[in-house]
Structures are given as C-alpha cells and as structure tokens.
C-alpha cells in the first residue's frame, strides 16, 4: 500500500531531532566552520541521543529497536537541516556500526558492537572515495589480495570523515579473487587505526563543511587477518551497503536544501526593493517555489529508497535515483538561495554562503553517512 504517513514514533523522533538540530547544531555551525573544528563536547553531547546504539541489538548493549532506514533518513534530514558538517560527524560511527550489524559475522558483532553501545563516543568510520576524478565505486582502485590466510590491502582513500580520531576504518576494496565484477567484487575490511602500513594524513582543508574533519588514508600493503573481511567468507551485500550510504547522503541533502529554503523565505519577505518585499516579485518568488518543489521531490525519492532498504529489497536503483537527483537539486537550491540573499548571501554573517560551500561539497560525497 502506498503511504507517505510516518508512524507516530517517527513523528516524535523527527520533531525532537528538528529541535535539537536547531538549538544545538545551528547555533554552533558558523563558529565551527570558521574554526575548521568540531565544537568541544559536541560529539559527546550528541552521543547521549543514542543515534547509533538505539537500533543495535540488546545483546550487545543496544536499544534493540528495529533497524529502520526510514527513521534514520528522517533523522539525517533533520540533523543536516541544523548543519550538515555536524550531522555527518555526529553520525559517522553509525556507518561503521550499522555495517557490522547488518553484514558482520557473529564474532565481528561481538567484537565491535558493544563499543558503540557504551557511554563514550566511539569514533569509527568508512573509507570509500578515492582521489581520482574518474572514481567509480564499481571500479575501486584499492585492492584486496588474498595472502597468508588473510588479505593485503593497497590503495588510497580520501574524504574519510572523522578519520582523525576513528579507531576503526571500514575500507572498501576490490577483491582480486572475486569472480565477476561490479558489486560482487567489492569487499569491506575492518582495519584498526594502528595497522602496519596504514598512514593517516593531517586533517584536510576543504571547501565546505569545514568543521567536519576528513583525512586521506594510504594503505601500503596493509596485512589483515581473514576475519577482518566483513561478513567472513560470505562477504557482504555490497549493493545494499552502497545503497544505504547513497540514501543517507541524499537525506542529508534534503535537510541542507530545506535549511536554505527556510532561511531564504523570511529574508525575501523582509528585504524591500522598489516599494515592496522582494518576495513579492515573481522572479524571486518562483525561485522559492522551485525550492519547495525540489525539497519535496528529493524527500520522496529518499523515502522510497529507504523503504526498499527497510523491507530488505534491492534498493540499488532507488538509491541511485535519490543520490543523483538530490546532488543536482541541492546544489541548485543552495545556489538560488544565495542569489535570493544577494550581497548578503556572499557575506559570512549569514549562513547561506556556508550552505553554498557545503552543498558543493556534500553533493560530491556519496559515502559519508548510512541509514
């Protein structure tokens, strides 16, 4: 049955996240961007919300709630509405923990999940993107070669979020032994921070979402044991993992777009020119209505992809739609939002230039969060 109605529980979560994002993230976003650093204590504060642990099994100390990509997509939209950089940093451990939960062996869950159910923020992340302009997740240049009963990992990953402090990296690599290409050749490996041959760069200096620490990691023949391969001998459903991340990125872009729209609307009503508010001019008003159309359109694509993930169906197509569509539209919304503000859109007193930079950054990152 086609339904766009969130559950009551989801409505409550959305509302709570919206308030939190407005009161905590929005307040701190500008200063964090200027400082190119996360606010002190922010990650610990967010950790108390239990964004990662709530949907992990009780057996490992989690909340035991059902894994819900739909609920998570809603949370990401709301958090990114507050600030996308802080949203990604706060939820980075979920990318790692959800992947272990969804694809890991019992031993891997036992070994890793309890850490994400504790009281202290547990930094972990995923490493997917590679520093090549022709990067394609189906053609990874980072390789995993079977050797001595384990694997040797070689390659470079960049834009690894929270890589400055992550204790574990989930590294996506092309398994040289895999039969066939595409998703079947993608494996994920749990690599500890202190692995020999793993070097981690200084924190990157980026265009947008400057508060979000990202690093480049280099894997120089990093030897890992066989049990580092996520899912053990069976490996992972890589299409699903990628779809989770693409859907999450798209959800973040909905939130960012909504932030721009909701800021531009009151500004346009307040700013006067030639005897009336600029919002009373169709040239401005139609940019705003387009934003509303696209925020809705993006959100339904995200929900559809998340719903397919939630019912354990193949979400490759739906997630691709959500990701490519939102990448294009979120950039356009931020671009037009800046235009509505005119000169003020260019001034760092308003958040719009921050969102403009964030939009160009976020719309080229497909693996910075998971639902």
């Amino acid at each position, binding site marked *: *049955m*086609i*339904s*766009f*109605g*969130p*559950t009551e529980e*989801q409505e409550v979560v959305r509302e709570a996240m919206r308030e939190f994002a407005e009161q905590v993230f929005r307040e701190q976003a500008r200063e964090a961007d200027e400082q190119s650093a996360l606010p002190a204590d922010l990650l610990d504060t967010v950790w108390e919300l239990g964004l990662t642990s709530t949907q992990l099994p009780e057996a490992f100390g989690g909340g035991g709630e059902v894994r819900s990509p*739909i609920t998570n997509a809603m949370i990401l939209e709301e958090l990114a509405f507050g600030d996308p950089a802080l949203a990604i940093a706060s939820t980075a451990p979920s990318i790692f923990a959800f992947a272990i939960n969804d694809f890991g062996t019992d031993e891997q869950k036992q070994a890793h999940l309890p850490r994400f159910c504790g009281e202290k923020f547990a930094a972990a992340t995923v490493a997917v993107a590679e520093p090549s*302009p*022709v*990067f*394609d*997740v*189906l*053609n990874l240049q980072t390789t995993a070669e079977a050797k001595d009963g384990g694997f040797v990992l070689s390659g470079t990953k960049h834009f690894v979020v929270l890589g400055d402090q992550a204790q574990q990296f989930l590294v996506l690599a092309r398994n040289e032994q895999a039969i066939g290409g*595409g*998703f079947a050749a993608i494996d994920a490996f749990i690599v500890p921070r202190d692995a020999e041959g793993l070097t981690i760069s200084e924190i990157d200096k980026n265009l947008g979402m400057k508060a979000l620490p990202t690093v480049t990691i280099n894997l120089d023949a990093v030897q890992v044991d066989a049990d580092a391969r996520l899912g053990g001998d069976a490996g992972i459903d890589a*299409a699903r993992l*990628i779809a989770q991340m693409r859907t999450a990125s798209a959800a973040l872009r909905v939130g960012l777009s909504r932030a721009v729209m909701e800021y531009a*609307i009151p500004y*346009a*009503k307040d700013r006067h020119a030639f005897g009336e508010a600029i*919002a*009373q001019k*169709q040239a401005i*008003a*139609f940019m*705003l*209505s*387009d934003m*509303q*159309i696209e925020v*809705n*359109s*993006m959100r*339904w*694509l995200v*929900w*559809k992809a*998340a*719903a*397919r993930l939630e*019912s354990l169906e193949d979400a*490759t*197509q*739906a997630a*691709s*739609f*959500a990701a*490519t*569509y939102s990448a*294009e539209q979120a950039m356009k919304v931020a671009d037009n939002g800046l235009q509505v503000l005119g000169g003020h859109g260019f001034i760092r007193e308003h958040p719009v230039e921050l969102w403009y930079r964030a939009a160009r950054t976020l719309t080229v990152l*497909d693996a910075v969060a998971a639902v």
Partner: protein
Amino acid sequence: MIDFNLTDNDNKILDYIRTEALVARKYARYYDENEAEFPPEALDEADQFPGVWSFMGDRTPEDSGQSVIGMLITMAENWGDYSVRMRKGRGVGLGNAALGASGTEEQRTKWGGLLLSMAITEPGCGSDPSLVQTTAVLDEETDEWILNGEKIFVTTGCRSDGVVLWATLDRSAGRAGIKSFLVEKEAPGFQVSHKEKKLGIRADDTATYVFQDCRIPRGNLLGGKEEIPKAGSGGFRGVMKTFNMTRPLTAAFGLGMSRAALDFAREQLEGSGVDLSYGADTHGLSAAAAKFQRLEALQEAAELTVLHAAYLSDQGEPNNLEACISKAKGGSAVREITQGCIELVGPMGASREHLLEKWFRDVRITDIYEGTGQIQNLIIARTILDYDRTQLK
C-alpha cells in the same frame, strides 16, 4: 507507515490496465493522423476484456487508497495512449471531479452517471478566471438561469453529456461572482461549435462551446448558493477546490506518456548494446546511460509528488499546495523527459514510424492546461510565503 510497495490487489489492477493499454496503443497512430475521427466508445477487442471494475471488488483497507490507485491507473492508461481506451469510461471527465468537489449530495447523485466536461477558459481568459465574461442571469419567473458566452479548449467537449462551466453572476464582483453551473447538452441555446486542431493529443476531443440565451433549471447551480460572497471571504475557493484532484490527475496523464517514452528509449538503447544497469557512479556510465538515468530519476520524483497529493486526499487532509507541486513538477518533467528521449535515440525519435514523437507532442499540454506551470508556481509561492493574491500577483 511509510510504504511504496503495491499490494497484490493493486498490481492485479495495474497489470490488467497495462494489458488493455497496449491494445489501445495499436490505434494511437491512426487517430493521431486522422484527427477528425474520434476513437470508438469501445475497441473491437473489448469483448475479450472484462473491464477494470471486475478487478476492483476485492479491494481491502490494506490496498492503496482510492485516489492513489486512481492516479496509478491513470498513468497506466496514458502509458498506452492519451486518447484511445479499450472502453471509453463514463463519469471520468474533469467536470465529474468538479461535481464531486462542489455539488450537493443531491446533485452528485443526480448527475454522477453523466460524462461531464469542464469549461472555464474563454477566448479572453485563461489562467485568470476572474476575467470570466460568460454571464448567468436568473429569470425569477421561470426559475431558470440564462447563460450567455463562449468557452474554448473544452476537453471531452464533443463526447460529454454535459458540462460544468464557470459563469459570473456579476462581472463587477470579480472572482466572488463566479459560480459553477451544470449544463446538459440538450439545454436550449447550447451549441458545440467545433473541434480544435492541435499540436498533440489530436484524437482528444477539444471543443468550443457557445451559449446563446441558454436556459437551465435554477437547481443547476452547483452547491446551490446563489448569493455573491463578500470579497475576501473565500467563496471562490469552493470552485478552486476542484483542482486539488484534477491537477495531480493531469500530471498523471503526462507522466504516463513520459514513462512510455522512457520505456521506448530504454528498449532502443539496450537493443543497441548500451548498458543501462544501475549502481555505477557517473564515470562508470556511458553518457547516454547517465542521461537516461537522470531522466528516469526525474520521472520517479514527479510520479511521487503526484502520489503524495493523492495520498493526502485519501487521508482527508488538505492538499492544495501538494496538488500544485505535483502539477508543476509533472508538467516540467514530462517536457524534459520526452525531449531528452528523442535526443537519446536520435533521428529515429523524430520519425512518425514510432510513437516517441507523438508522446513528445502529446505531453506538451501537461504544463499548460489545468493551470500553467507558472500559475502553479504562483500558488506555491503564495502558500509558502503566506501571501494573498494582492501581495504576490
């Protein structure tokens, strides 16, 4: 709970509609090229098809809501062809939506079985109905309304049994003076003057109506309220309510055809060895595949805005904003999609050997009728800015 899966019952209906639609599609070219003819009330094949109603009996609350399945059926029918149907339905004209939205219980019962067209546009008035010149004057002696005026671009205008039209009780009262009237074809002074020649949807019946001292019973004023509401009291919103269902519906017409265009382009591209499989990032796709998938995502997004508006209607929630969003999104999407599909398949797409060029022409009306894309944007903007029509013109 958020859910985008169709139930077995939903699929049973849609599979059936698509089977019918493919039969109807065989006749699409003929009626496009022979626009003076109307597609028949029923195709020759109709005796082999039981009709969709025979599949509707076992619907349950678990199935998609009535408006939602209605939109999906509409898309599936139009995926076959805009005009040709296995059987021409009764009671599915735009005027029927108006009767449902504005008529009294008694009026809905009385005329619900008729096929009703909707006449708003006049030679001098389209998007701004406050300029309606057609007048309705009450003759107290005979208890009749006397109508005078001309209506153009009346969809299903020749075939319909009657029409819901907008006429003013008082031109000086602007929008507040406009009322909806139901006029049956037999009414004296009602003349159907001709069928228009068009870019697309040529088989569709688009008529011009002339009303010359046309007399109808006093009870034919929809809703029955004869007084002119004071300016700003929202009386006009009653007649505008009609659009909350017809706007998503017209978007669904167009999206059915743009889906057909995508299916044709996919068939041609894959048949020529272009890999359209999903999952790769942009650099893992050919330029054609990247473009195709972008258009498909646009199609999907637009369809979802239509289903969202319909879903709200099924829930009894207001959907004025969402209806406009679906119409604006659908209207612009079908233009881009059909234009893009021709680009993707090249000159073949411009050949009348195939239906793609027809879909390209047919969908173009989507962004014009039932309020142009710009009108939708205007309403959306007023809504999100909390402006009235004097503040945002």
